[in-house]
C-alpha cells in the first residue's frame, strides 16, 4: 500500500474513496428497503406499530460512540496511544451496548404480539433494523481487530488512514441509524 500512497500524494487515499463508494452501495440497499416500506404502507391491510422507547436510549448510545471515535482519531493523530486505545475500546463497548439495546427493543415488540407473521411496519422493522445491526456488528469486528493491533503495536507504518476509514464508517452507520429512526417515526405512523 505504500506505493499507493506515494503515487497519490495530492488525491484522496484510495481506501477512503473505496469506503465512500461502499457507503453509496449500502445506502442503495436501505433505500431499496425503505422505498419498499413506503410502497407497502399505501396498500390495504398495512399495520402500524409504536416504537419502543428503548430505541431512544440506543440512539443516545450510538451518538456518544461517534464522539468517542472522533476523539480517538484525534488522539491517534496527536500520538497519544494510551488515550487512543482507551477511546477506541470505549467506542467498541458502546457499539456492543447499542446492539444489545436493539435486541431488547426487538423483544419488547415481540412481547406485544408483533412477530414475523404478516407484512406490516413491524416486520419491516425487524428486517431493516436487523440489517443495520449487522452493519454495526461488522464495525465492532473491525474495531476489535484495530484494538488488537493497537495493543500489539507491531505496525511499522504510522498512518492515520485506517483509523480515519474506521471513523468515517462508524459515523456513517450512526447517521444511517438516525435516518432509519426518523424514517420509522414519520412513515411508520404511531
Amino acid at each position: 500500500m505504500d506505493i499507493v500512497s506515494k503515487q497519490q500524494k495530492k488525491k484522496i487515499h484510495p481506501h477512503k474513496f473505496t469506503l465512500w463508494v461502499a457507503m453509496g452501495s449500502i445506502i442503495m440497499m436501505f433505500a431499496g428497503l425503505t422505498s419498499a416500506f413506503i410502497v407497502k404502507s399505501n396498500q390495504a391491510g398495512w399495520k402500524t406499530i409504536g416504537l419502543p422507547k428503548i430505541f431512544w436510549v440506543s440512539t443516545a448510545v450510538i451518538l456518544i460512540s461517534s464522539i468517542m471515535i472522533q476523539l480517538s482519531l484525534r488522539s491517534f493523530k496527536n500520538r497519544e496511544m494510551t488515550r487512543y486505545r482507551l477511546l477506541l475500546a470505549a467506542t467498541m463497548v458502546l457499539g456492543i451496548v447499542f446492539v444489545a439495546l436493539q435486541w431488547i427493543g426487538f423483544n419488547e415488540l415481540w412481547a406485544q404480539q408483533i412477530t414475523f407473521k404478516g407484512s406490516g411496519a413491524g416486520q419491516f422493522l425487524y428486517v431493516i433494523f436487523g440489517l443495520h445491526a449487522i452493519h454495526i456488528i461488522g464495525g465492532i469486528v473491525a474495531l476489535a481487530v484495530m484494538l488488537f493491533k493497537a495493543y500489539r503495536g507491531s505496525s511499522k507504518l504510522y498512518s492515520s488512514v485506517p483509523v480515519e476509514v474506521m471513523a468515517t464508517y462508524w459515523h456513517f452507520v450512526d447517521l444511517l441509524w438516525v435516518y432509519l429512526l426518523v424514517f420509522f417515526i414519520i412513515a411508520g405512523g404511531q
Partner: protein
Amino acid sequence: MSEVTHGQSGAVVAMPVHHEHGHGHHEQSFISKYIFSMDHKTIGKQFLITGMVWAIIGGLFSVLFRLQLGYPDQTFPILETFFGKWAAGGHIQPEFYYGLVTIHGTVLVFFVLTAGLSGTFANLLIPLQVGARDMASPFLNMLSYWFFFLASVIMLSSIFVHTGPASGGWTMYPPLSALRQAGDGQKIGTDLWLIAMAMFIVSSLLGGLNYISTILNMRTKGMSMTRMPLTIWAMFFTAVLGVLSFPVLLSGAILLLFDRNLGTSFYLSDIVVNGEILPNEGGSAILYQHLFWFLGHPEVYIILLPAMGMVSEILSVNSRKPIFGYMAMLGSLFAICILAFLVWAHHMFVTGLNPFLGSVFVLLTLLIAVPSAIKVFNWLTTLWRGNIRFTPATLFAIGFVSLFISGGLTGIFLGNSTIDIHLHDTMFVVAHFHIVMGVASFFGMFAGVYHWFPKMFGRYMNNTLAYMHFWVTMVGAYLIFWPMHYQGLAGIPRRYLDKSGWVSFNQFGDLDKMITVVSIIVFAVQLMFVFNFFYSIFKGRKVTTRNPWGANTLEWTTEINPGHGNWEGEIPEVHRWPYDYGKDGREYIPQTEPVGANESKH
C-alpha cells in the same frame, strides 16, 4: 491491510528483461501466486477460468432442455444413465426441466457474463490500461474472487441435493419461489440459490468498489479521464451500475428469505396451495418484481457494457484507425448508464401496471435506442475505409456489432407496452435477449480473450481453430435464435416443457428439431474453443514482441509476461489519447510518446 508484497516490486529498478516468471526478487509460494493471489492479473484469470467452467455447465444444460424441446416424444436412455430419476425412462422430467432452465439462466447471466466477463477484463485491464501497479485494494480484490468461488460452490451443490436445484426461473418470482409446498425445486434448492446469490452480490460489490476507486484514483501521470481507453470507461460505468443496483437485489432477496424461512408475508397474500389455505396476508408479489428489476435491468447493461468497451478498442486497433467519435462514445455510455435505472418497469407491462405509468416507461425505453444507435454508427464508421486486419478478435467484434443491431431492433418491439401484451413471455423475448445480451456479450468476451490472450499468457491462440470457432458460432447463433422470433410471434410461450398439446404449434416441430441440432453443434464448437484456450496456454505460439498488435494502450508497454507490479521501474507517463492510429503517416503512436512540435491535431 498492510500487505506490502507488491510494494517490493516497485523497488525493483532495471532488472534484466529476460526472466519469464514474474519478479524473481521474492519467491512466492505456489499458493500465494496462483491460489490466494493478490495480483490483479491472476485474479482476472481465476475469474475467466471459473467462468468458463460455468459456461460449460450452463451451456450443457441448454443442450439438455433443447433435446426436450426439439424431440419431446423421443427417449434418450443415456440421459437416465447420467441423471437417474431426473430423466426416468430417458425422458427429461418436468422438475428437472425447470431446474435446468433456472440454473442455465442464473449461471449464464450472473456467473458467466457478469463475473466471467467484467470480473475477468476489469481485473486484467484496469490497472494495466490506466497505469497502476495493482487495484486500489488488492486484498478486497482477492476477497471478491473468493466470494464468487464460494457462491459457485453453493450453487453447484444445489444441483446435487435430493430435491433438486431451484426451479422458479432465473427471476425467482414469488409466490412460487417463496413456498416450499409448491414443489421440489422450491425446497432446499431455492434456499441454496438465494444464499449463493447473496455471496455473489458481495463478490460483485467488492469487485465494483475496487474498479471504481482504481479508475478514479490510481491513474498514472498524464492519464486524464478523457485519455482513458473506452474499455476503461465501459468498465467504470459497469461498476457504477453494479454498485448501485446489486444492493437493491440483495434487499429483495433478504425479504424473500424471510418469507421462505421465518413466516413473514412481504410477498405473499391470499394463497391456496394444493388445497391448503395459507395464513399469509397483506403481501405483494409485485413488490419483488420492482426490487428485482431495479437490479435486473441495469444488469443487462452490466453484461453488455464491458463487451461494448472491448469491441470499441479492438475495432479501432485492428482497423488501424482512431475510434470514430470518442466523446460521443463516452456520452452514449453515460446515457445508457442513466437510462438503465429508469426503465425497469418495461419488464412489468402486463403485471397490472398503470398504463399511464407504462407509457412513461415506453418512452424512456425507446430513448435507449438513441445512444445505442450512436454506438453502432461509431463502430461502423470506425471500420469504414479502415485497413482492417481480420484477426479472430476483430471478427468476433464485428459479429458483436451485427448481433447488437439485430437484437436491438427487436427490443423496440418489446419496449412498446401494447405490442408487449402479445409478445411478453413468448419465444420472441427469448430470441431478443439471447441475441442482444447473451450471444452479443459472449462475442465481446471471445473478442477480448483472443485479443488479450497474448498479454495474459505470453502466447497466441491457434488461429485456424479460432476462425472455425467464429464462423460456426456466428452462423449457429442466428440459426438458433432467429427462428424463435417467428415462434414467439405465433404465440409459443417460453418456459414450456412440451407444447405438442396445441395443434397450431405443430407446424414448428421441424424448426425446433433444427434449432436443437444446431445448438448441439454450436456447443461442441465452444468446447473446441476451451480446448484451444488451454492448449495454447501451454503449447501456443510464443509472443516475441511486447506489442504484437501494434496497439497504443499501456498494457503493451509492459514486459511480455509482466510480474506483480506490472512495470519494471517507473510507471510510464501518458501524453496523448489512445487512438492515434494512422496519424501523420505513422501507423500508430503509443500513448507514452510525447506530442511532437509539428504534429497535427486530431
